[in-house]
């Protein structure tokens, strides 16, 4: 059974490479039962979105 520490590592890698089927399944099950990691996953997506917009946001845009 995957723990949170392993899940966070996999979530990070999932942002940079395609996870394989086994990794995706294990992660999905973990996220289903773990609200902390589920929140973490959403936060990673938000961080990515923020990083994309940095520098070009603002009223002049």
């Amino acid at each position, binding site marked *: 059974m995957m*723990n949170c520490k392993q899940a966070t590592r996999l979530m990070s890698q999932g942002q*940079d490479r395609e996870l394989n089927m086994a990794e995706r399944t294990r992660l999905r099950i973990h996220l289903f039962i773990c609200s902390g990691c589920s*929140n973490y996953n959403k*936060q990673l997506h938000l*961080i990515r979105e923020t*990083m994309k*917009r*940095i*520098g070009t946001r603002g009223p*002049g845009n």
Partner: protein
Amino acid sequence: MSRDAHNHNKESATPDIDSEQISALRDEMIRFARLQLRDDHLAEDAVHEAIAAALKSNSFGDRASIKTWVFAILRNKIIDVIRERSRHPTESLLDEDAGDLEQQFDERGHWRKEHEPANWGHPEAVLANEQFWLIFEACLEHLTENTARVFMMREHLGLEISEICTELSISESNCWVIMHRARMKLRLCLESNFLEEGDES
């Protein structure tokens, strides 16, 4: 009537990129370049070069796209500087302290109750919050220089991990570790500062 329409079209098609407009952008560009380069001189040089390149050309559409376009030039300048500098690495790349990050988990590798990530609410609402952006930039500055560089190359400049490793001559596994720690650290910093601002929606 037709002449008015003509003038209007002409103006909106080729607005002048005047120096006033550029200097308004300048501060923002410098702040942006500093975040990525962590060096005031290099940042100012990159911005000057980008502005010079912008002034030389006059092919753009509306005001909004001028900004996008000038930043696109700046981004390329920043990539050049990073590439040039990474040929002469001076410090170890794996310098982010992992101690703080590890202690968020208990001995079985689960979140300790007090460190469990919270729900930040709707992403668009968070992104619309000016306070969030200020905290985000401050948290980015807390990353060590090398971590911030790798993170920026990946998340902002959109390079692939394999490209970054090659550019910086570091192993792929180190690259994963750097990215993971950067995200963990940034998230932790955001959560402890942003949520305490009272935005616990």
